């Protein structure tokens, strides 16, 4: 076991996969000489050379398209979005070509690529650098969307994403890179299509992902003291959603709260709740609740920013309120 920062866990994943498969390469802004804005590719260009750790000009749409072309013809690119927000400039290539091309080509081509980088609301980074694009991208057919949340799952998930034959959007969180955890010395993979049961419980199912997992676990500490027994599930895969794990949990708890960092309108929870209603409405003892960010551009001011995203206290209150409902 070795104590590892999340950013280093990701670096290890890339390093191991590049060592294992010489078609795997990294491209993006400042991934080479600079080592990546969050040090995820630090010194890898020295080990693998400048073509396998390719510093690109600031041309997101075009280098994303280039990666897609390379993937169609046999390579396995990993794009680092210096900040995932910048992928808005690559929306066309991601939506039309990464997402849809396999289908429109009738299966002629596959696109094994990973697009990874920091997303989410940081500390007063301003609206453009505080995007939660998972919500915008979830409507695109053909994309898999994954969000990591701990050093352990970050490493195992990224390795699996790199080996997957589909385009995977891999969201890291700008505030989680310095999380530390003991990681196994042996190689391991974590499947990208399975939710993770973080805490078993019987009262209520708390569905969450990315940084909000840690907010939820903070709330759980309080809830435990007050005698509640929540089940916490980290979705991990935001598309497709692992309804098998979720369904099993609902059969046990009959109550669900979704906690997300994306905005409320057309967020991840909106889709999950609709699907839960489709699939297991009869199991529910209460309407599914969602705690989401406000439907506004993230304000710079620190106080307004904290009002914009969900805080642990709100999670505690929501659970208590839901548990107080008599069935």
């Amino acid at each position, binding site marked *: 076991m070795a104590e590892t920062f999340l950013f280093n866990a990701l670096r290890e994943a890339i390093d191991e996969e590049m060592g294992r498969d010489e078609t795997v390469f990294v491209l993006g*802004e400042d991934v080479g000489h600079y080592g990546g804005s969050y040090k995820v590719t630090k010194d890898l260009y020295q080990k693998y050379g400048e073509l396998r750790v390719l510093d690109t*000009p600031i*041309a997101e749409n075009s280098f994303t398209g280039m990666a897609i072309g390379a993937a169609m013809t046999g390579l396995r690119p990993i794009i680092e979005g210096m900040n995932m927000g910048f992928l*808005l400039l690559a929306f066309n290539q991601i939506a039309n070509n990464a997402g849809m091309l396999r289908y429109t080509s009738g299966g002629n081509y596959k696109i094994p690529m990973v697009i990874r980088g920091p997303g989410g609301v940081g500390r007063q980074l301003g*609206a*453009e*650098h505080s995007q939660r694009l998972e919500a915008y991208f979830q409507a695109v057919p053909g994309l898999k969307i994954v969000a990591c949340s701990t050093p352990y799952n970050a490493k195992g998930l990224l390795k699996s994403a790199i080996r997957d034959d589909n385009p995977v959007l891999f969201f890291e969180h700008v505030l989680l890179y310095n999380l530390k955890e003991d990681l196994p010395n042996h190689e391991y993979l974590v499947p990208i299509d399975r939710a993770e049961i973080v805490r078993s419980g019987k009262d209520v199912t708390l569905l969450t992902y990315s940084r909000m997992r840690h907010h939820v676990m903070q709330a759980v500490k309080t809830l435990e003291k007050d005698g509640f027994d929540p089940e916490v599930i980290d979705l991990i895969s935001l598309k497709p959603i692992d309804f098998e794990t979720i369904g099993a949990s609902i059969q046990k708890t009959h109550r669900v709260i979704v906690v997300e960092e994306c905005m409320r309108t057309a967020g991840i929870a909106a889709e999950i709740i609709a699907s839960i209603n489709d699939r297991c409405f009869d199991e529910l003892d209460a309407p599914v609740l969602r705690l989401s960010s406000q439907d506004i551009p993230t*304000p710079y001011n620190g106080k307004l920013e904290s009002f914009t995203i969900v805080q642990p206290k709100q999670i505690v209150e929501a659970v208590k309120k839901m548990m107080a409902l008599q069935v």
Partner: protein
Amino acid sequence: MVQERTLPMFQAASAQISAEEGLRLFEDMVLGRYFEDRCAEMYYRGKMFGFVHLYNGQEAVSSGVIKSLRPDDYVCSTYRDHVHALSAGVPARNVMAELFGKETGCSRGRGGSMHLFSSEHNFLGGFAFIGEGIPVALGAAFQSKYRRDALGQNDADQVAACFFGDGTTNNGQFFECLNMAALWKLPIIFVVENNKWAIGMAHERSTSQPEIYRKAGVFGIPGVEVDGMDVLAVHAAAQTAIARARAGEGPTLIECLTYRFRGHSLADPDEMRSKEEKQAWQARDPLSKFEAYLLEQKLAGEPELKAIKQKIQDTVDEAVKFAEESPDPSPDELHRYVFAEE
């Protein structure tokens, strides 16, 4: 250290500026410098957050271009926008208050360092993503032409000055806008601040043609190369470009060769640029250079320049005090400004 480009020669003596003009430029440059120095201090003291990109070293560009404009012209910036905003006339106290996230900030505390705006000063922004300001500036220039040619408003001759860096010229939006600007002869000036680096990416490693001013020619746009550490050279080039734009003759691209004296942002460890390179450019500090010029040419005396510095120091002190004492935005107004109001 990469091979330095030969700097274009500019005969300052031929510039012939008045003492008044000289002092105006000097004061603006001092403001840019002192304001940013104070920002660094405030950032390290935890008064401002996020990504803060300072402009130290590049002041001759902002002052040389923007001080050649009229107040009703438009200025469009990037995330490195504090000094452009100041040159455009946004009061230092409102810029500082924005960086403190206060209601009295020019974006009412909602925007922060990378999102400064002031419609009152025709300051179009503050854009956190590279390149996205270029089409916006193009839009302001289009509006000006539209008023004149479609609405017959003869006094609509406003010009838009659009600033961006070397790294940004590798982005498609740059080329797309050069094309449209030339196509419709829009009154816009593309000001490239070539400071040799895009965060940790050396300009030469990112572009097939490092001489950016040459890229304008492909679109039939005049491209000029200017010593961006010399405010008079920038000023002269800007005046020509502005006159051309105002006369309806179309855009100009000015490539200013310059350097930032600090890291990319205050979060950047700045480990990529060599000590030799930094020192070589530091020696060409545009502020001390211009100060020496003013004295040499007897356009100003020591006491006068000292008085200006003191005045600016006071302005910046006052700005910090104002920012500190200003209120945070009210949580009741969290949802305000999402949509236009009555």
